[in-house]
């Protein structure tokens, strides 16, 4: 096996082992979407009427509607959390170890992203399994077809986190990230309500929602769960991945970015 693959495998394995060992983090990652699914959606289903829109071929309950959005939320939180652990210096040591490996830096960052994405995919499947246990079941083929899409959307949100961790200094605490990244991304998307509902209220908001990469990630997941490929959403997600990855690579360039600021001291 080449050195590249050896490193990739080790980085992914380490991240997955760490995640499994940190039970608190696993439970938190599952409780969050389950609260939305089992509490919020139960209360909200009567307030919101859904018409038949693709990919659904029949009326669906609100719980069924928000499952893809919650899958996206799981990945969004995971992406932000891994970036915050970097900003907080908790992971800074292991990042230094990573960045001083003689392998190319882009490969190391990409491996780190793959590792975070693998963890987020584990979380999504655990969430889907619990949702299924509560009777919210997708077509069987959907569970398989969604995997490559989750890989793409997970990478996109992980790259966003990596870019943020390297470029934005102000996001020093989780409240900041909640307010300025997670909430806007989540609420200005199709995760909780179909976009045509948003269009009825405000055209401007609708337009923002439509270009939100998170909307496109959620829609790509939604269509994949029903065995369909939403090509525009997939393309938009891929484009966002490219942009965020580019920003992350610039941010981790040794001539600027995070490591440079952190180098102060003794």
């Amino acid at each position: 096996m080449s050195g590249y693959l050896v490193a990739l495998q080790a980085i992914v394995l380490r991240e997955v082992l760490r995640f499994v060992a940190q039970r608190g983090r696993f439970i938190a990652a599952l409780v969050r979407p389950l609260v939305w699914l089992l509490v919020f959606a139960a209360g909200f289903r009567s307030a919101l009427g859904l018409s038949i829109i693709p990919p659904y071929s029949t009326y669906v309950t609100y719980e069924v509607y928000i499952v893809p959005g919650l899958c996206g939320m799981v990945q969004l939180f995971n992406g932000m959390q891994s970036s915050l652990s970097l900003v907080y210096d908790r992971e800074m040591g292991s990042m230094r170890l990573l960045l001083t490996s003689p392998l190319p830096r882009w490969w190391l960052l990409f491996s780190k992203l793959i590792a975070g994405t693998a963890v987020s995919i584990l979380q999504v499947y655990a969430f889907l399994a619990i949702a299924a246990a509560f009777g919210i079941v997708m077509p069987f083929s959907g569970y398989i077809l969604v995997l490559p899409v989750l890989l793409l959307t997970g990478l996109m949100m992980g790259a966003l986190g990596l870019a943020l961790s390297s470029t934005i200094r102000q996001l020093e605490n989780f409240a900041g990230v909640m307010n300025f990244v997670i909430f806007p991304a989540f609420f200005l998307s199709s995760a909780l309500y179909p976009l045509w509902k948003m269009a009825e209220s405000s055209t401007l908001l609708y337009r923002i929602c439509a270009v939100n990469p998170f909307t496109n990630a959620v829609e790509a997941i939604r269509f994949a769960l029903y065995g369909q490929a939403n090509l525009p959403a997939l393309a938009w997600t891929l484009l966002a991945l490219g942009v965020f990855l580019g920003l992350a690579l610039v941010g981790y360039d040794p001539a600027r970015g995070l490591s440079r600021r952190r180098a102060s001291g003794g």
Partner: protein
Amino acid sequence: MSLHGLNLQHLSFGYGADPVLKDVTFSVERGSFCALFGPNGAGKTSLFSLLTRLVTTPTGRIEIAGIDLQKSPRAALAKMGIVFQQMTLDLDLSVRRNLSYYAALRGLSGREAERRIDAALDRLDLMDRAKVRARDLNGGHRRRTEIARALLHDPEVLFLDEPTVGLDPASRAAITEHVHALCAEDGLTVLWATHLMDEVRPEDDLVILDRGEVLAHDTASRIAGDRSIEQVFLEMTSAAT
């Protein structure tokens, strides 16, 4: 081939208009132990970040075992072992697992990695602790694990940034002893940042860094003359004020 294990030429570095390192130039012969001595804020950690390419600077030149860090960063990184000031072990993993993760980051796996891990553990007298979780090690053994890890890929140059901070005197002495032995027996070039003078031996190379400038570079005994290094150091740094 250069005779230098480490060669720094005219390195300057700063954050904005604030210079942290000013025209730092010195070299360390292959196989010698060089102590980089300076008070807090002297620029030691910034210098380490430059040497390990966590940051770069457009001015100056760094050669690691004769390889230009700017021109061939990956080849130069492959020649160096690093022990950061901040502990970088995975506390939930065993000593051996920590080492094999690092080996994988350097592209080593399988039997070759195992062989090197055994050798490094043996070298640092850690064989009996291979299966212990890093969390259950004391500070001295954690540091030794990090040094063992830094040696896995047979580096030619070893950087240690204040490796004895927070350790008790016995562990400090043991680690200082170990690294001196690596120099003498394996011909490793060592750059050891510290602000504790008792870690430096009279025959060691000594670079005194203060406010980003090299104030002196010679063997410790020659810099000290007939006085103690502390005295000389205090005089130098107060003269610079």
